């Protein structure tokens, strides 16, 4: 049982937190701009490299340098929106989806150009986990990731329900035409959507990079699971995306637990298929997601 917690549940929560933070942006962009942002994973990568670069110059704990990564991701997101997505805004959204495919490639090649394609670590060395009650082992980083994600989730909740900007975002996500009728500045809402989406993506990118290592494909490899999380949480429901991310993360890890026999339920080789199966099952039986998101 303790093995289950140490080796399946906690890693599941950790990777789930990464998915959750990434999925928030995907869900919000989907809600407000109405397109599946295929470059979101690569935005995470850019954010991660932003912090990695800062670490080279300022030798403190990487999490303290998070603002550098966030800033870089925000600038990148606003720039691609301005130059690549905005000109397509009036067309069917599918053009923007295709454009985001291209942006993903642009981000990745820029990351490879500037930071090279090798694996790079934030902090090297074995970090022995904290042991609680003799058997419960959790690494410091995982604790930080999970707690920070929870804090961010709570802050996001209050932002969306209490602040004017947050409510405006939900309004645009709900009924963009009515929001325009109500005189809301849609472009401003869109800009803030990128700011928030990019900040969380950068945070997720740093978490993922710290847990393992930075490489240009880091975010792209996580994209599918984040899409699944966004769909699971209900499109346009950022809090749902958080829950969806955690669920997908835990499901992925625990699906390989020895539930029925001594053999893993699902071979670890197929771990990355779990997210996808959840997504397909959901599309079939509950396309609005668990939390009543918008049905496309």
């Amino acid at each position, binding site marked *: 049982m303790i093995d289950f917690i140490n*080796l399946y549940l906690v890693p599941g929560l950790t990777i789930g937190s990464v998915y959750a933070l990434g999925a928030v942006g995907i869900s919000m962009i989907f809600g407000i701009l109405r397109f599946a942002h295929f470059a979101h994973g690569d935005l995470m990568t850019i954010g991660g490299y932003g912090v990695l670069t800062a670490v080279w110059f300022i030798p403190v704990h990487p999490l303290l340098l998070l603002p550098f990564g966030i800033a870089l991701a925000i600038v990148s997101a606003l720039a691609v929106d301005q130059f690549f997505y905005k000109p397509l805004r009036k067309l069917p959204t599918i053009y923007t989806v295709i454009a985001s495919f291209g942006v993903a490639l642009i981000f990745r*090649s820029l990351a490879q150009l500037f930071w090279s394609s090798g694996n790079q670590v934030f902090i090297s060395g074995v970090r022995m986990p904290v042991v609680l009650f003799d058997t419960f082992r959790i690494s410091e980083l995982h604790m930080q990731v999970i707690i920070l994600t929870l804090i961010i989730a709570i802050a996001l909740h209050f932002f969306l329900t209490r602040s004017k900007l947050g409510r405006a975002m939900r309004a645009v996500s709900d009924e963009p035409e009515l929001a325009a009728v109500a005189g809301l500045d849609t472009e401003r809402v869109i800009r803030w959507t990128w700011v928030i989406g990019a900040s969380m993506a950068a945070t997720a990118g740093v978490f993922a990079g710290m847990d393992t290592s930075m490489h240009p494909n880091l975010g792209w490899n996580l994209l599918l699971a984040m899409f699944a999380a966004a769909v699971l949480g209900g499109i346009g429901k950022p809090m749902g995306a958080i829950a969806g991310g955690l669920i997908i993360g835990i499901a992925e*890890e625990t699906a*390989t637990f020895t539930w029925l026999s001594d053999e893993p339920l699902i071979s670890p080789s197929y771990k990355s298929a779990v997210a996808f199966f959840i997504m397909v099952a959901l599309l079939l039986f509950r396309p609005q997601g668990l939390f009543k998101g918008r049905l496309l």
Partner: protein
Amino acid sequence: MKKTTYALAVAALLASSAATLAADTKIGLLMDITGPIASFIPPLQNAANLAVSHVNDQGGLLDGQAVAVYGDTTGSSQGAVDAAGKLINIENVPIIMGALMSGTTIASAEAAAIPAGVVQISPTATSPAMTGIKDNDLLYRIVPSDNFQGEVLAKMVMDEGLTKVAVTFVNNDYGVGIGGTFVEAYKALGGEVVAEVKHEEKKNSYRSELATLSKAGGDALVVIAYAGDSGGKIVKQAIEGGLFTKFVGTDGLRDEALIADIGAEALATSFFSAPTSPADNPNQAKLHELYTAAYSEPADKPFVDQTYDATFLALLAIEQAGSADRAKMAEALRAIASAPGEKVGPGEWEKAKALIKDGKDIDYDGAGGSYDFDENGDVAGFIGKFVVDGTVYKQIAIVE
């Protein structure tokens, strides 16, 4: 106006190729620069460039300079065939070094190099399928096929007295190739594989894989994966989780980055296998010294040795052939790589050039082995057993 600028830029680019002096000779370097193994490439490009610069600093190639032309396979068969086609048809190279992955190597050989009669020499492709290809003596590699390292590793593990091990290997041609052979050979020797898990690259957590592996209680964990990727993570997470203390790795894991990351202490009981040369090999130390001097970074990374050697061999073959005639490359390559002949090592271009000029037979012994090709263009290879000694690896035994 804009169009004129573009036209000028294009013209300038084209002209730069014309600027290559007539006496210079091109060598094709086919690498999987982008795509799934992109993270391994930067040091390998350094290694190949180092070989070319050694040539140019020490008398040049034939009557001019050696010019490296890269082709990027993009890690895909389509890209490999296309890039090899360009090296052959547009750049007109006499010989190609590469590619690195088995999949891209075989595709480019089958659909581009072999039909055109161009010798291709891969530093790293380990797929057993390469042996059986009808290649008209054009396809070479300087690493033993997976079967060999897997078998040797099985013997090493048994000799160490480990009769029960857990095995995990990365799900690509490298991992599956060696892993599959290892498991088979180990069982044949009477060992018990208590758990066998294939894993995907580039995942964040391998803890659930490790949980499965550790449950069965093996004496050690055999990790066939790269230190810079899943292999390093698995070792790290196994130690952090207190699941394994003894690891057995292959050349992919035997990377100085692993010691830097994990620490020598935690790896004290572990050992590694890697292709090496028959005797205690000073050439490797020498190459590493040259590499570190040139790029101020450690050279003990996977496939750096082989990439340098393959590039150097290709260049030697051109020199030996006396011209950039494709038809002469295979014969020349066999001549300079195989015994007998005067020994030449990494960085000794001047010596080699002089010997060739005098009509003497040479035998290149590289940092990664001595490379005597059999009729299939394969090398027998020697596998060394390495342990961690301070911040570096020490070779403690050799198996042929």
